[in-house]
């Protein structure tokens, strides 16, 4: 093999990176694919964008991740972007969100046959096969109700840090349903509940339940059966996962809801994995054309 890329495949190992540019955070993954022991994750990081210059955040995140992984920038065979990847100017290729989340999901939980990706603005459900092919999907579109931002807003109105949301919600005893579905107007509802003396835990659980209601609809719409993996930022919220398990059981949907500590990196992971696959395909092609 003589393709210009093949030198990066030294010793049968290949380094790839996945950069998932989200609306609220950049997720970066560095991956090693070795012929003998498969794929190994070398670095994972999340960088909140806040109100900073996006290009800079991406650049920094990437450098730091490579540093963490101890990989030199020019030994990366394929840097793949996903999400809002236009600003990743060092990328070699781009894969779209569902492609990468599906791939990442199968990598994290091989038996997953459906993915529920809940990010800051959207939620989407995908049905996939064991090869991580997307068979069908549904997503929320122009309304942020039930999105991560919705939850973030509620947490802000309640004065609760995002990281605490999950554990609080799990402590709820008598969850209180919100009536307003609007991510913004829910504020009134929430504040009303606070003043009626409803505990923060019960409010959060109520919010989780109303979100879950929408997600289950998405999952039902795609015909999800068995194993579902939650990916995206909200996978970190165990309260959501718990509410989801309860509701799914109640609705007798026969679903097993999974989360994975690396769920939030599913997109970035998928990008890195596809990068590795694509690199080999292209290298093979280059090889065959030269022969």
């Amino acid at each position, binding site marked *: 093999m003589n393709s210009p890329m093949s030198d990066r495949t030294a010793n049968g190992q290949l380094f790839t990176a996945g950069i998932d540019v989200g609306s609220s955070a950049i997720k970066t993954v560095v991956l090693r694919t070795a012929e003998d022991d498969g794929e190994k994750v070398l670095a994972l990081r999340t960088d909140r964008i806040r109100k900073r210059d996006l290009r800079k955040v991406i650049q920094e995140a990437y450098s730091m991740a490579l540093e963490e992984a101890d990989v030199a920038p020019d030994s990366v065979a394929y840097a793949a972007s996903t999400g809002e990847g236009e600003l990743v100017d060092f990328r070699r290729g781009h894969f*779209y969100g569902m492609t990468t989340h599906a791939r990442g999901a199968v990598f994290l939980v091989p038996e997953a046959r459906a993915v529920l990706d809940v990010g800051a603005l959207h939620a989407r459900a995908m049905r996939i096969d064991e*090869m991580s092919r997307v068979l069908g999907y549904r*997503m929320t*579109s122009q309304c942020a109700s039930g999105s991560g931002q919705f939850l973030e807003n509620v947490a802000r109105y309640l004065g609760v840090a995002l990281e605490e949301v999950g554990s609080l919600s799990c402590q709820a005893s008598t969850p209180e349903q919100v009536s307003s579905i609007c991510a913004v107007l829910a504020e009134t509802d929430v504040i009303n509940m606070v003043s009626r003396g409803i505990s923060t835990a019960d409010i959060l659980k109520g919010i989780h339940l109303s979100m879950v209601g929408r997600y289950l609809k998405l999952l039902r719409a795609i015909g999800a059966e068995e194993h579902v993996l939650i990916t995206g930022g909200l996978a970190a919220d165990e309260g959501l996962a718990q509410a989801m398990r309860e509701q799914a059981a109640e609705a007798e949907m026969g679903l097993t809801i999974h989360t994975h500590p690396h769920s939030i990196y599913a997109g970035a992971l998928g990008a890195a994995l596809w990068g590795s696959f694509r690199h080999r395909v292209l290298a093979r092609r280059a090889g065959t054309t030269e022969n």
Partner: protein
Amino acid sequence: MTTDLAQLVERVSHLFEDLNFQSVRDWKSEEPGRHAIGYMPIYVPRELVHAAGMLPVGILGGGDRLEIIRGDAYFQSYICHIPRSTIELALTQRLEALDGMLFPSICDVIRNLSGMWQMLFPERYVRYIDLPQNFDPAVGGTFWRQELDTLRTDLGRIAGREITDRELQHSVSVYNENRRALRQLYEARSARPWLFPTSEVYLVLRAGTVLPVEEHTAIVRRYLELAPLEDDRREQDMSRVVLVGMFCEQPPLGLLITLERAGCWIVDDDLLLGLRWMGGDVPEDGDPLQNLVIAYLEQSAQTASVYQPEGRRGTWLVDSVQRNVAEGVIFCAPSFCDPALLEQPMLVAALEREGIPHTQFKYSENTGQFAVIREQAGTFSDSIRLWSEA
């Protein structure tokens, strides 16, 4: 871009962006006594209008540049967008150049719009064109002939003279010419989509809704010559798709650009069917009206609005995929478009029987955000790209 092509594209873009139909006004003012007749998207026998010496003008809503202020007052949020922007155009005097309006029976929304037009603009000519859903020449054909006859008489009255068979024959031949040019354009794009990006082809086509047909044919032919001369247009590793669902409300241009950016070559579509609904040539000799009648019965485009007596829905789509060597189908229908969206499951079934990949999403003519659509189309083209090699 060569200056010639750039000029051509600028001209057609300008026509596309002109919400005041200035070109139609100009055409009318060139000679006194000229008339222009508007028509809603498809199945309008433009030959009759042409034969009456009039300019048929395709009205396709207001796109994404028109702010809807009063149009919303006439339609609930769960009705598609095109009727409200069409009303907005009319209420803001942008359709002043039109002496009449034709509403073909595409769906109940357009049908009812014809009634709204009668109430809102009682002084203008309005006609609802009921297409026969019976394809027996003796039954549906007779009915259609009577409808066309009425239209012919009405137009003759507006023009102040009767439309002769000879005039009609001439119009048929002029439109045959235009249809041939458009077929060539579609074939050329299908063969080498990188030379004829759809976002550009669309504009070239769209000019045909406002320009006299003869002029439009010339533009199409010129475009066919010029586009291949661009040397920066190269083949890329993208997926070939057929795009369907857009036979009425047209997508914003940004959507077409987004699809191409997301890695999809569009090799066939149902955009601007108003210019292309007649599949082949109409015979140029013999009784011209009867020729038009038979042409409708036998070779009009299959869309969701026309009944298909035998066989399954979607054979034409499968044909198109095969003929154009497409790798997948994107259903892209206007939100709340009942005909397109009710048709979709049947088309999906047809594709699934053949194992053709497909995806679907909705738009409205004024959609401004394409992030979600880009993700969906991108994922689709990714999957074609990745899985065809796996």
